[in-house]
């Protein structure tokens, strides 16, 4: 690990000011992704701003009938919150399918959204990777890419976003609230929060340097049946190959978002119009532009079958 200076801050304003003073600084929340990457010197911040004591660890009801989830709420606490279990069960389920009990006790809402890809070459500093070292090339295109993306890829990067929680947040149309280093605040719809790789795979979100996430806001509950179905190589403590978050209504309408397929949680609103026609019709529309490799072509079949399993589970 490279040496770094460390500072604790007590308010979002202090955090913003610290970020303004140290443009290369990083915020540290749970640390479960950042420290992992710092040990490998893939992340090399010269300064860490510890945001664990900002008081952003509460879940509050909004005037609109939704929930405002503090950026520092731990994954365990979010999954176990009574209101989330009752009205946003798909979010509880997505969180509980990720990582381990220990990691969920530390991991935060904002940190989870911002976790970086698990592409094996991103993790291997001896290999070219446009995301880690812009312009160096993409080892995955001709390499081991079984678990990499099939939608929204570019010829520069085919990495996936590994978060389960983010897929549920996308399904629920959450909004990310932030404060800039200069004190300005804004609200970013989750649909435009994560970016596609394009020619700049190292830029993963819409956040500006030093911009702090303060909360993630859920709109009022959707009702319906909530399902998160994750398919992976082992039954627990593994990232998704494919996952589906869905809310299905009795009248046959509904929503579906996919994990494991792209650089961001993948949801095609137009495909949801076909919900009443069944999973095949929806999957066809979602997967229409898929670009696969011989190793990851199975994901198109798996995505359709996972969605079919979700429909079946909802009927049961």
């Amino acid at each position, binding site marked *: 690990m490279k*040496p770094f200076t460390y500072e604790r801050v007590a308010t979002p304003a202090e955090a913003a000011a610290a970020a303004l003073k140290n443009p290369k600084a990083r915020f*540290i929340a749970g640390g479960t992704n950042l*420290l992992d990457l710092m*040990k490998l010197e893939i992340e090399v911040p010269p300064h860490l701003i510890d945001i664990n004591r900002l008081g952003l660890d509460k879940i509050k009801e909004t005037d609109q009938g939704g929930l405002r989830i503090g950026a520092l709420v731990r994954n365990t606490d979010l999954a176990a919150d009574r209101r989330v*279990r009752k009205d946003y069960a798909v979010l*509880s389920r997505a969180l509980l399918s990720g990582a381990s*009990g*220990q*990691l969920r006790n530390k991991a935060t809402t904002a940190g989870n959204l911002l976790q970086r890809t698990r592409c094996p070459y991103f993790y291997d500093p001896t290999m070219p990777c446009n995301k880690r070292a812009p312009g160096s090339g993409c080892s995955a295109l001709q390499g081991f890419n079984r678990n990499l993306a099939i939608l929204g890829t570019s010829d520069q990067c085919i990495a996936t976003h590994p978060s389960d929680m983010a897929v549920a947040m996308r399904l629920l149309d959450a909004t990310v609230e932030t404060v800039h280093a200069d004190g300005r605040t804004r609200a970013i719809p989750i649909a435009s929060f994560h970016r596609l790789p394009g020619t700049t795979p190292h830029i993963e979100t819409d956040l500006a340097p030093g911009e702090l996430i303060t909360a993630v806001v859920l709109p009022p509950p959707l009702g319906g049946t909530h399902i998160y179905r994750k398919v992976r190589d082992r*039954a627990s403590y593994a990232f998704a190959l494919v996952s589906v978050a869905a809310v299905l209504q009795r009248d046959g309408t509904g929503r579906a978002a996919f994990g494991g397929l792209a650089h961001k949680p993948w949801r095609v609103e137009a495909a949801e119009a076909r919900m009443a026609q069944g999973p095949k019709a929806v999957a066809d529309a979602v997967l229409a532009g898929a670009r696969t490799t011989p190793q990851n072509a199975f994901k198109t079949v798996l995505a359709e079958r996972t969605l079919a399993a979700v429909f079946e589970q909802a009927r049961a």
Partner: protein
Amino acid sequence: MDEDFIPVSRRGILAGGVATATIATAPASAQDSPQDRPPPSATTRLKVNGRTMTLTVDTRTTLLDALREHAHLTGAKKGCDHGQCGACTVLVAGRRINSCLTLAAMHDGDEITTIEGLGRPDDLHPLQAAFVAHDSYQCGYCTPGQICSAAGMLAELKAGVPSHVSADLDDPRATADEVRERMSGNICRCGAYSNIIEAISEVGGIKA
């Protein structure tokens, strides 16, 4: 971090405190900062197993390294150092976490319980006694993490925290399936899993 330690023997690292960490990281920091400037440090007050200790450590020191190399509590183990095995599990304010993926500096004022604090050789914690009774280990390397994790896990189950295998999010049942899912963050290379589940189930009053 281990790469930095290559020129130094493992024994040297274990024996030393702050000074060793400084020496060991000198090759890496030489290019970034003048040789005579030590790497940045942070002061943190930890309440470990009921004892308060104030440590001034290289900012890079994880909670795991602080416990093992500075507090000389070597119960928590370093398996992977990347959150992938659970050998480093300790309780912070009663909640289980991986001590390898958090900095000592981030725990100023926190109450930490390690396997040494859970019970004593002459006064074993029920989980420690059950692991002995059920022969729940072979090499024992994962055991302190398994036991700390189990203590945190049983508290979570009691508090009604649901899991991936809970059929009803509002009513998680105390079953062996639940224990298996909730303990998946602790890997045992010796494969003592079935006896580990038996020991935990007995203490948790769960039908194995």
